[in-house]
């Protein structure tokens, strides 16, 4: 299996020897790469039974399951990284899934096709039809992608959910990559695929001079 460009970038975001959960792991391509290159300890979940079985038969820890129904079986903060690659746009409840990722993992890595790319904008503007591109090749009536969003939309959602974006990398249609920073306004125009490294804001425990325990990060978030 050839190594995908986005997988290579995901690998760079992950520290060696980490525990990684790959959601929608397919037949285990990314898992295999992470085990081999950075000695990651991996688990995977895949909705397609045939792909899941291929992964299992290759010796990876993969369970057949649905990202929207079966993530509740993983305990809080049980992985260093949870990866959701090219799948968020196919979720019925992407916001809930995103929250789940950071419940299970210390950090989440999310990649998605950017609907804000200039080619997509132009296609819709001039043809008046739902755009089709190399990354989004489906007709509207058969696409698995049910929630289209842009980099800006995603940044807004992260803000709303108190999620900090530790790093974001843009991939252009031609395979070039650059880091998305708030200063670069054209990122949303030229990115065909974006990869985000996410975590929660690191609240310092609030020390209150009572006999009560200090608030942890999670209780601070809940309030």
């Amino acid at each position: 299996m050839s190594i995908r460009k986005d997988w290579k970038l995901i690998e760079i975001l992950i520290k060696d020897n980490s525990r990684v959960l790959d959601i929608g792991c397919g037949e285990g391509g990314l898992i295999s790469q992470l085990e081999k290159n950075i000695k990651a300890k991996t688990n995977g979940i895949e909705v397609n039974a045939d792909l899941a079985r291929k992964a299992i038969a290759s010796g990876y820890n993969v369970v057949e399951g649905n990202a929207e129904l079966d993530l509740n079986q993983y305990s809080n903060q049980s992985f260093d990284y949870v990866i959701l690659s090219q799948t968020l746009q196919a979720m019925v409840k992407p916001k809930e899934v995103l929250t789940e990722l950071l419940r299970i993992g210390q950090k989440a890595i999310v990649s998605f096709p950017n609907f804000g790319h200039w080619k997509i904008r132009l296609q819709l503007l001039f043809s008046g039809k739902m755009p089709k591109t190399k990354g989004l090749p489906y007709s509207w009536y058969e696409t698995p992608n049910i929630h289209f969003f842009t980099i800006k939309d995603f940044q807004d959602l992260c803000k709303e959910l108190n999620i900090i974006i530790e790093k974001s990398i843009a991939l252009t249609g031609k395979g070039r990559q650059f880091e998305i920073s708030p200063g670069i306004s054209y990122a949303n125009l030229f990115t065909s695929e974006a990869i985000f490294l996410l975590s929660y804001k690191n609240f310092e425990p609030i020390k209150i001079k009572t006999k009560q325990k200090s608030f942890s990060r999670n209780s601070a978030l809940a309030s």
Partner: protein
Amino acid sequence: MNKSINIFKNFELQCLIAEFSDISLKLDSSIKINNFKIAYKTFGTLDANKSNAILICHALTGDQYVSGINPITKKDGWWSRMVGPNKPIDTNKYFIICPNVLGGCSGTTGPKEINMETNLIFGRKFPSITIKDMVKAQNYLIEALSIKKLFAVVGGSMGAMQALQWSIDFPEKINNIIHIAGALKHSAQNIAFHEVGRQAIMNDINWNMGSYIKKNTIPEKGLAVARMIAHITYLSDDAMHRKFGRKLQSRDIISFGFDADFQIESYLRYQGRSFVDRFDANSYLYLTRAMDYFEVGKKFSNSIEFPKMKNQHINYLIVSFTSDWLFPTLQNKEIVKILNYFNRNVSFTEIETDKGHDSFLLDEPELDEIINGFLNSNFNKIN
């Protein structure tokens, strides 16, 4: 300790017998069996560093004849399509050990064997046993064979229960578990079916309070009915419809009587009759009871006890079948969920088939592929 273990070949049973004398097997019930024996078969060759041993645990009415010809039935072993040279569990590569379970009736200590202490047939005097007890006895066998670590423990149904129990009681002795169509605990519905089977046996006048061997009778009818009931639970509505439908047996019109008019009746009667020739009624009582008592759920869901278990290194493969209503997917998935909750190495797949619980014994290419792939790729990892 080795002094009291004696392994010899039994020509009548065409298998090996390991006799453990002066070792007392303390059962879950606190009763001890002081002299016991395990009948088992092996296939393939144990490699130099003893890293290729696979223990196969049989289901309720299985035996040690997992592959090759069963000398009692003269038919192929119960999993010969899965186990053998160049089969998914390849005996050219792995060393297979398949013991008859404690309480069984193919040569291992069980109700039809002679109690070494009294020199009488155990019969109903045989103590109640559990899945844990079976595993404990198997562990003595593995120790006797000087195998420190099993590459895998594999089993379906009652065999799956044993495999799971192995990972709880002796996690340090296993690398991989293949658990097919099992559960954390035996469900109320399954206990109910077993109870009907046991009642059929115990209400047969020839059962004689369990002393039928001494009285020279066989509770054939009761055991056959028990088997017929159980056999229904191993199939599925769809498979029965596909295989038999409402087709009549050797007749064109219904008889307006209680003969086996329908093919399904004739089939079940045949299953019942042929079962009597190869299985002991008391064994059936004890083994169904052992399954009923099986419940590891309580221990598993205990979040303090489980993480302490030394099973972090074990790769679990859990397999279920869509049409299995005896050990349905949901019950298998409960195990997966708990293992995932505790961050263990777990794989799970549900195979689509209409063949019911018995699917694991039948032609299911997807099952073959996944078992073969899982074993071989994990074997390559450690070698």
